[in-house]
């Protein structure tokens, strides 16, 4: 760990935490319908929107109605993204004349964006038209994020209400999240990113003349497009020399802003934020990285404001931040120590970042690549600025473990905090068992129904991850996609299912996952683990809202203390560790031993 590394990490945390209170306050005011500037200037427009869309603003939905609205709205979004991909060849804004996407890939991507996962089975610049990116993917970036925030707000409301049937109105919560939070922040970030050099245009790809010609071999094809065989029966190759480079362009800045802010993560280009047009400078990198955790962290404060005790929000934020910071140092140290198998100069100095530079960009070096990897998997963002597949074994273990913790260390916008609140419910339950009292959280008794729902929420993702990994590794169709052999190949598959099963979306991209098998299986898993968390969360909300608020007594476990932060951290880590350490031992841990002992697989 160099001084520069340390400085950049500290700066990141300081700026992030400094923004938590102002943004958290603003968001709480939006959701509580108190004056916050924008929601008064645009109040007329918001009302008009509801009238046009026949939204009954006064309707206070029961949890089942709220869940139904979420499902209908997300299903429609999914169908639109699917249809746009299948029809893009005949739609406008397709200057590269890209053909329609395959059904299995289109299904996977539609699910991926509707569930806020943004797993990238496709390669942006070679498959998606500008039209699909703008009206399909970008829109779901906003709406899937707004859905997560709405569900969080409904859950938060259930703590304040007493003897109530309703938990709020999904249409209103979702619209306000989009209109007053996601849209203005995206606009601001997009403008800043353009200033750093992120492309934003609807012009076709640009051809430029190279300084030095490149020659390469490619299979020779006959007039019918069939491979020509040489005399020995092997496919013949021909050498081609080109003096041209085609620069893929597009309306990227607008989409990248929301993909970072909405913890979506689906890149405009194939290599996501490693692409110089998507993330051109260290400053653009800092802003994009900040945007990953900005809303999830600030929502903790909003939660505190809305339940009437900001200390409750700070405690949750503290637990998240401590786990995050510890893992940042593990990942940065692992990457900075480099790869002992490479006999080259990997020592950090003023003239080079050193360390494990395979799959990393020079402008970001080690610290910004590893910090990003931890942030993007702590939040369920999943965008990357370096290739996680080429990380050292321990450097790759950290992002995988963060996803396996259930995306609650900040987590997705809304979804991270509602996940963490469920862990808090489990933590008070554990404490209740120890002292022999009925557990309470924020004045609400936690009883059998809440615990059953919490159990579903905690068990569904591991079931998806471990079950999916086992299935893929037993089948030939699952194994052929692996790029790296041995323990690392196992990690590639485990990473893919950890990512889909927790709606993250990042990848060990060596795995060729754009096959019918992976597209369908991962697609189903993304659907299952998004909605079988969201529905039980709404059920908990419905149940809590109907209860009365019990006054604080002598036997109440205070949940605003450092002690509770520790208890919460232990609960999260214990559940994650007990479930996943055996699997991690077979992948990254074995590989780490192989690397340090210099035993080649």
């Amino acid at each position, binding site marked *: 760990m160099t001084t520069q590394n340390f400085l950049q990490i500290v*700066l990141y945390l300081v700026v992030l935490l400094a923004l938590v209170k102002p943004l958290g306050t603003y968001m709480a005011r939006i959701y509580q319908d108190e004056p916050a500037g924008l929601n008064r200037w645009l109040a007329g427009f918001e009302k008009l929107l509801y009238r*046009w*869309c026949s939204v009954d603003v006064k309707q206070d939905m029961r949890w089942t109605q709220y869940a139904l*609205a979420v499902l209908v709205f997300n299903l*429609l979004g999914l169908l*639109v993204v699917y249809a746009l991909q299948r029809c893009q060849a005949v739609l406008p804004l397709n200057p590269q004349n890209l053909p329609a996407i395959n059904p299995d890939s289109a299904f996977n991507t539609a699910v991926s964006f509707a569930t806020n996962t943004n797993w990238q089975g496709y390669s942006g610049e070679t498959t998606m038209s500008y039209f699909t990116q*703008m*009206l*399909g993917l*970008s829109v779901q970036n906003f*709406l899937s994020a707004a859905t997560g925030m709405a569900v969080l707000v409904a859950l938060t409301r259930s703590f304040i209400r007493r003897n109530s049937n309703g938990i709020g109105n999904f*249409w209103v919560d979702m619209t306000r999240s*989009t209109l007053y939070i996601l849209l203005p922040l995206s*606009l601001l970030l997009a*403008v800043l990113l*353009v*200033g*750093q050099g992120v*492309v934003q*245009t609807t012009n076709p790809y*640009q051809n430029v*003349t190279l*300084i*030095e010609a*490149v020659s390469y071999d490619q299979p020779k094809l006959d007039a019918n497009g069939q491979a020509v065989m040489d005399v020995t029966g092997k496919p013949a190759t021909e050498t081609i020399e080109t003096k041209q480079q085609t*620069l893929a362009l597009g*309306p990227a800045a607008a989409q990248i*802003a929301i993909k970072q802010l909405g913890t979506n993560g689906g890149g405009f280009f194939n*290599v996501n934020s*490693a692409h*110089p047009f998507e993330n051109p*400078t260290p*400053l653009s990198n800092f802003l994009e990285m900040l945007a990953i955790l900005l809303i999830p962290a600030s929502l903790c404060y909003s939660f505190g404001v809305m339940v009437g005790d900001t200390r409750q929000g700070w405690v949750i934020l503290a637990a998240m931040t401590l786990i995050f910071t510890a893992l940042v140092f593990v990942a940065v140290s692992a990457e900075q120590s*480099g790869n002992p*198998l*490479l*006999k*080259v*100069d*990997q020592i950090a100095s003023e*003239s*080079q970042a050193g360390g*494990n*530079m*395979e*799959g990393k*960009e*020079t*402008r970001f070096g080690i610290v910004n690549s590893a910090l990003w990897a931890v942030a993007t998997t702590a939040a369920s963002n999943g965008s*990357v600025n370096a*290739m996680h*597949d*080429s*990380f*050292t074994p321990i450097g790759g273990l950290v992002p995988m473990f963060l996803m396996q913790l259930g995306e609650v260390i900040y987590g997705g916008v809304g979804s991270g905090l509602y996940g963490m609140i469920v862990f808090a419910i489990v933590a008070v339950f554990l404490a209740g068992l120890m002292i022999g009292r009925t557990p309470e959280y924020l004045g609400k008794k936690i009883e059998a129904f809440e615990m059953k729902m919490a159990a579903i929420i905690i068990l569904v993702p591991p079931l998806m991850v471990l079950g999916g990994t086992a299935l893929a590794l037993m089948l030939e169709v699952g194994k052929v996609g692996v790029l790296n*052999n041995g*323990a*690392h190949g196992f990690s590639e598959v485990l990473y893919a299912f950890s990512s889909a099963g927790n709606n993250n979306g990042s990848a060990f991209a*060596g795995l060729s996952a754009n096959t019918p098998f992976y597209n369908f299986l991962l697609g189903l898993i993304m659907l299952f683990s998004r909605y079988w968390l969201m529905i039980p969360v709404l059920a908990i909300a419905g149940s809590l809202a109907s209860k009365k608020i019990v006054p604080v007594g002598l036997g109440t476990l205070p949940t605003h203390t450092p002690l509770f932060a520790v208890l919460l951290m232990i609960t999260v880590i214990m559940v994650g560790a007990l479930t996943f350490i055996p699997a991690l031992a077979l992948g990254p841990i074995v590989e780490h031993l*192989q690397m340090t002992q210099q035993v080649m697989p």
Partner: protein
Amino acid sequence: MLNYFKPAVLLLLLLTLLTGVIYPLVVTAFAHTFYADKANGSLLYDTKGQAIGSALIGQSFTQAKYFWGRASATAPYPYNAAASSGSNLGSTNPALMVAVNARVKTLQAADPTNKAAVPVDLVTASASGLDPHISLAAADYQIKRVAKARNMDENKLRELVNAQTEARQWFVFGEPRINVLQLNLALDQATR
């Protein structure tokens, strides 16, 4: 059920218009008014006005008289800016050692007198396959070779390299680096 479908369909429609059409077009209009050059890919032009690259995208260099950039894993040829890609090779993959060793050999063969250890970024593939930069160490390693190929004084070349060095942004962010394409263009200009 209709109570759910009607608002769902209409809200989706109007929010699509807002976030999928109006929002990106507003950003595009802003970008083309204030940053037209950057919004279109930060293109570089030669004296005849022909586009010869982007300040943000690397190009492949293999001749001794040019500085070489990071290895690129794009297909079918390196630095294919229409299909970005990393190598995705794992740390313990034998293919990674083979590739790195081959690149070290090529560098050493081009400059047999240079016995310094090769800087890691010069022989590893970048994340995007389009990385326009190398580290200062990677540029320094190549100075002897380039000076010899161009019959240039090493110190003069070093000055040129220093002039192209970008420091950390705002003194803290990122890593010091050199844009390979721009350095090579400056080099061609200086020795014309």
